[in-house]
């Protein structure tokens, strides 16, 4: 009889943290070559459409930035949560509430606002997302309610709230009865950075957030506290850190970032509110956070990569007539490979062979 066992490697070096995602990306591409070939496509051309075209002209690059911005903002916040063992699964809901609060300001001031509208929107969006994330956090701390369930369920509440608002009180009176708000006025939109694309100030905000979060995590006591609470809760108590206060803090920060992403999407890219306003950024950001090793800079890189597959998927629908599902297959393969690579780098497989003449 022979058994395969996983044995933890004594020392997996720092290189492993980088190697796993890179290997996973490589394996995803290799597997997709096979899939393209089976679908009767020219594999190399398909790969080009997916991964090269989106980054081969200025317009494509700007689109990538537009898609990556919300993913990066949300995933950085989630990374802080996940690092400290707080499972905020409801970033999608916080994203929508951020869009509703910021968009609400735009709808309310439509026709009489000034340059103060945009900062107010950003503030309202962040505050809304934060308040919404505090619901599961406070319930967890006070009543020990599971934060995964509460935060997840609140996504659907937010979704239906948006639906009701754009069909009811906030519907554009001149919009031919379509379920959407007015198109935001100039004062209520984020300025574009370059001509010939949709990249806006939001991408700059996302970059600033990444830098600040990276410094906080690596160099400050708060970052140390987040890592310690997640890794060794008893040692964190011994260090005098309060895990309940930290739960409130990380939920507040991640909710604010998700809300900020929501209002940036509303004010920068879509410029109005409408149902189905988010393609699921809040959920995709969970994959981004893990692909980015729960590290802010990692989230930036992973967010850009996932954004490329979104754009590449759109290209492939138009040019190769491949279904949108291919994008989901990519993301699924990627997550699968990264988990597998992680396991194989942290553990080794050993064949356990019993001694001669085993009797079982």
């Amino acid at each position: 009889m022979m058994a395969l066992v996983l044995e933890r490697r004594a020392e997996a070096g720092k290189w492993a943290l980088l190697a796993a995602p890179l290997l996973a990306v490589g394996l995803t591409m290799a597997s997709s070559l096979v899939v393209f070939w089976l679908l009767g496509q020219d594999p190399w051309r398909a790969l080009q459409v997916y991964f090269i075209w989106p980054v081969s002209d200025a317009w494509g690059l700007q689109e990538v930035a537009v898609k990556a911005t919300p993913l990066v903002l949300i995933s950085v916040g989630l990374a802080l949560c996940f690092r400290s063992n707080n499972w905020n699964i409801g970033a999608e809901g916080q994203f929508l509430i951020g869009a509703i609060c910021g968009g609400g300001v735009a709808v309310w001031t439509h026709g009489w606002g000034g340059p103060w509208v945009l900062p107010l929107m950003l503030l309202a969006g962040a505050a809304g997302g934060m308040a919404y994330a505090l619901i599961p956090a406070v319930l967890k701390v006070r009543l020990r309610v599971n934060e995964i369930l509460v935060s997840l369920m609140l996504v659907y509440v937010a979704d239906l709230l948006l639906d009701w608002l754009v069909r009811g009180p906030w519907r554009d009176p001149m919009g031919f009865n379509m379920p959407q708000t007015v198109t935001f006025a100039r004062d209520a939109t984020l300025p574009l950075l370059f001509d010939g694309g949709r990249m806006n100030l939001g991408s700059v905000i996302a970059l600033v957030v990444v830098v600040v979060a990276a410094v906080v995590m690596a160099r400050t006591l708060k970052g140390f506290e987040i890592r310690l609470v997640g890794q060794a809760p008893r040692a964190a108590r011994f260090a005098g850190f309060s895990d309940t206060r930290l739960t409130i803090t990380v939920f507040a920060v991640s909710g604010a970032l998700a809300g900020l992403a929501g209002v940036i999407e509303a004010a920068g890219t879509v410029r109005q509110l409408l149902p189905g306003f988010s393609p699921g950024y809040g959920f995709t950001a969970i994959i981004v956070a893990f692909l980015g090793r729960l590290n802010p800079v990692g989230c930036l890189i992973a967010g850009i990569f996932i954004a490329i597959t979104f754009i590449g998927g759109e290209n492939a629908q138009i040019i190769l007539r491949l279904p949108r599902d291919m994008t989901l297959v990519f993301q699924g393969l990627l997550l699968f490979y990264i988990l597998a690579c992680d396991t194989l780098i942290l553990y080794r497989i050993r064949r356990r062979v019993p001694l001669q003449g085993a009797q079982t």
Partner: protein
Amino acid sequence: MADRSPLLAAEAVTRRFGTLVANDAVDLTVMPGEIHALLGENGAGKSTLVKMLYGLLAPDAGRILWQGRAVSLPTPRAARALGIGMVFQHFSLFDALSVAENVALALDEAAPLPQVAERLREVSRAYGLPLEPGREVWRLSVGERQRIEIVRCLMQNPQLLILDEPTSVLTPQETEGLFETLRTLRDEGRAVLYISHKLDEVRRLCEAATILRQGRVVERCDPRQQTAASLARMMVGSQIADVRRARAESAAGPVRLRLDSLDLPSEDPQGTSLKGVSLELAAGEILGIAGVAGNGQDELFAALSGEAPAPRAAAIVLEGTPIGHDGINARRRRAAAFVPEERLGHAAAPRMALSENALVAGHAANGFLRRGFVQRDRMLAWVDAVTSAFDVRKGPRDPEARALSGGNLQKFVVGREILRKPRLLVVSQPTWGVDAGAASLIRQALIDLAADGASVLVISQDLDELFEIADRIAVIFHGRLSPARPAEGLTREAVGLLMGGEGFGPVADTPPVMERVA
């Protein structure tokens, strides 16, 4: 008797873990009707050897003979089928199930529960191991839980019983009871392989000993012919530095720490609440708290450290200031320092570097921060200072905590606190599971700290340790603390009786642990 053939023989058994040779051509011979001691420091290879004998590890080389015949032991089940039983240091029992149910689950052949209970009762009566089959395990004391494990083994009718550090959790009286049982087994012609590092016990109980050092057999002897000191020398391979107690005769200073009838309900429903705990600790004094595990030591430590704030601020007074409501960092700023029992997970985060673990206890009072930013160079310098002052052996300059051996990590977490020059040090199990060299270094450091005028409170289950270093000793039982008495003139028997609950008087609400005191 001399011409009888060995029951079990290991011949040149070798086992490697990576580059570490845990067992290097080890020979071991156990005769029937013999209590055989396996002695060695932590990491000498005792556990590796018995795990191979019990089928938990496969040897890389060498062979194992059972009654003269070469055997292979791929699983513990195969070992049990031959007649080898083992009682582990850490129990594997289901708290919510009854004694009989726990035993039935572990039997190799399924049997109806009433039948198991009946046999259990027989075996426990025959060997003087009283157990009530219907009791749920969570109601039982540690000693009783160990009895379940032993009875469970005996029900398989083993010819060889392996015991791994069985007395580390027992009171002296319980230890005596266990020894009686083991002698009964020996008189029946069974063999016992007894793993321990308690030399007095080995000398009293065992007629043969094999001594391991760094994976090799260094000596075989009859421990009855040896002194504790000579056995210790064989184990360590050199003279252990005697802990010096060059202390001024009872030059006890002013009272530094006072507990005034501290009541503290345990946060853990299975824990032990503290009831009316009072004590006084003077400057320059070492106070030892003895007691069997689970009698409120964890709660007392948490109350002293501030991890569990006291209901009344005045219940804990440090240098005249009530600190009962203060958190752990506020207490650290008042020059108090703490070393909890668990090294990995409580005192240190396993996957963090030592420099970051310096920050765990030092961020409040060690000047590791500047405007909220962590000063890595200062933390590294601190690690270097602890390393050289406490002889912490490690490969790289700043490894993860889990990469250190138990003794070296303990030296680090003790050194981390002592180097802060605290005026009060509270330390729980300072040398638990630590090799003799590290243990003597740590004890010496505690004594030196007190000699410099600090107050030291040591919570320990190791009576030898307390008698070695403490000026006064109190016993914790059931969350209540006995008055402290001078260690000088105190006998082990007197402390042992207190540890078993004698002299505490009847208690109104009797928690389950109490009921075992027979």
